[in-house]
């Protein structure tokens, strides 16, 4: 049904909502519920990781040494920085400054690209060292066959995280276009807020992944 059937309502307010408050609260609750599903989704992997790390601490510690703490730490800073610029974009939307929205989101997008660039450098190094699980996996060091398991988790977890970043970055493109058209006003900018929530979530996943994969157990013993 096109909105044209009901021509008597405020622009930006969907026909089935009474007011912006109801529309915004619904979007907000919907996004939080969606983030709960994301927590459960990543939760399955976190559970598996926790289980096998407990079972094979030596293998996981040995494998963890192959990861570059420097790159990981650098990326953590980049991603936290992108959360800051995203928060500033939301702030700009609340104040009704479309140009600032665009500026901060483009900045966030660039930081996201930076993160993925570093990630691809790291992935390439794993590829060269034959650390991709599968028939070409080669491991000469300590830790036994479970090292491959660690890298299985490493690629599943960081890969899914990167996929979430790509989705977030695509959404940023949409928000930039809409912001330039002046779609966001101080009363109606829920799209920017929701993008912000999602991006902070993606950031938060990395905040857990970094210590789990790069740091824990490295300096044990």
């Amino acid at each position, binding site marked *: 049904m096109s909105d044209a059937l009901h021509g008597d309502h405020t622009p930006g307010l969907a026909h089935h909502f009474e007011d912006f408050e109801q529309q915004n609260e619904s979007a907000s609750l919907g996004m939080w519920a969606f983030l709960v599903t994301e927590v459960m*989704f990543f939760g399955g992997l976190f559970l598996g990781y926790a289980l096998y790390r407990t079972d094979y601490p030596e293998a996981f510690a040995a494998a963890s040494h192959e990861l570059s703490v420097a790159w990981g730490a650098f990326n953590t800073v980049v991603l936290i920085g992108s959360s800051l610029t995203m928060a500033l974009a939301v702030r700009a939307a609340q104040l009704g400054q479309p140009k600032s929205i665009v500026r901060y989101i483009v900045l966030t997008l660039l930081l996201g690209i930076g993160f993925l660039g570093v990630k691809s450098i790291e992935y390439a190094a794993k590829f060269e060292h034959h650390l991709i699980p599968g*028939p070409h996996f080669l491991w000469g060091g300590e830790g036994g*066959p479970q090292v491959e398991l660690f890298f299985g988790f490493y690629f599943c977890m960081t890969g899914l995280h990167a996929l979430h970043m790509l989705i977030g970055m695509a959404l940023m493109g949409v928000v930039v276009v809409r912001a330039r058209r002046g779609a966001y006003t101080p009363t109606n900018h829920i799209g920017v807020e929701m993008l912000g929530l999602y991006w902070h979530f993606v950031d938060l996943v990395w905040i857990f992944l970094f210590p789990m994969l790069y740091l824990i157990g490295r300096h044990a013993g």
Partner: protein
Amino acid sequence: MSTKNYLNADYGFRSWLTTLDHKRIALLYLLSITFFFFIGGAFAVAIRLELMTPQGDLVQSETYNKLFTMHGLMMIFFFLVPSIPAVLGNFLLPLMLGAKDLAFPRLNLLSWYVYTIGGLFTLWAVVFGGVDTGWTFYTPYSSTYANTNVIAAALGIFITGFSSILTGLNFIVTIHKMRAPGLTWFRLPLFVWAHYATSLIMVLGTPVLAITILLVAVERLFRVGIFDPALGGDPLLFQHLFWFYSHPAVYIMILPGMGVISELIACFSRKRVFGYGFVAYSSLAIAVLGFFVWGHHMFVSSQSMYAGLVFSILSFLVAIPSAVKIFNWTATLYKGSISFQTPMLYALGFIGLFTIGGLTGLFLATLAVDVHVHDTYFVVAHFHYVMVGGMLMAYLGGLHFWWPKMTGRMYPEGLAKFAAVVIFLGFNLTFFPQFLLGYLGMPRRYHVYPEEFQVLNVMSSAGASILGLGYLIPMSYFAWSLRWGKRAEKNPWGAKGLEWEVPSPPTTFNFDTTPTVTEEAYDYGPKPEPGEVAHV
């Protein structure tokens, strides 16, 4: 008869395939799940034909494995999980809440597309080689050894899971934020409470299935080792993750049915549901407890004895909220002004069959008994009593009850009553013998069996043919009624609820002005007057 309603507001394929109207999306779902139901049913026919004789003479073992796998996949993921929520829930929630639509109409349409794509993907897997792992995809068979189309089927299920998540998310937000003025939580119809509980499970459980299924696909493609003992992985981790979703999923497949039954019992006994609050909370209790009982599928999977004990106790606890519902429905019947229209026949059938299904669940939750009947036809009979005897009865009851609202037409009452009785009898003849077979030791998922089991198997197959024909009757007269059925009034059953205060069929935006609710649900008054019940 030229008034505008949601059906004649617009015409053509395009208007249906791009609709954002929850009522039209419900009809899209109705058509698609009916399609998948008959595909799943066709596999069941093949299974029952094979089991007529003790020898494996109709199909080979490999084919038989594919048949029961695809029967399970189709029926669970493409019929039972979406059945009541996606059809009746989609159609009725906004009407019951006094809203113009669900909170996210676009997501609603997207969920149907996602469902359809997932379904076609799975069908593709079925046509090109099939899949033989059982609907449970147990590792390491599914991840390492099976030579069938596991990845395609798994991805089909993975995709469809997102439609379930989107539906659940939409329902939760709608129930929280779209209620009409005065419609407080404890004035909500119990149908809404049941769907709220169902949605919680969909949102919390389905993502876990998604990651699990994804890991199986990754394991097959890249040999990551998560479920492979050779690399230090544990195949049992799969069972834990799988049942963490799939046991609660059983409640996705029954709670909406319970919601329907509450509506039917209240309407056809002209009484407020006894202990409304308890029935409402029992839905939430089932949803919550459902997340802590998955280990009862793993009593014989080398789970520790103590874990087994805890899971056994927790499984018994689920009986409490389930029994609260059954007892409260029967208490509602007591001194009610009962009339036996078709929906009520299904509701009464549900109470009887679900009670048998639920009580045999207690046998299975008992550790020692489970060792004896695990993986036998006893289990098969048990879950078919819950899902077919329970959910499918409720679905059919609800479909009859709200058919006039959905289509503006009445179905033929006499024929419908006949069909309800045929289905009830056919169902029991199909599945009761399977309890006996299982108790006597016939394992599930085998197509060759000792000769002494033949009589019971032939009874079951005979029942299945009656049941199959039984399903064709409603299918035919529902289609017939669209053109020739008597036109339905606004409220043919004299039922209470906001959905009965709008025309049949409703207009596109449901309510001209947002209604204000001033009374509790099921306000049928203290004493029903004789003759108040509509005769159709």
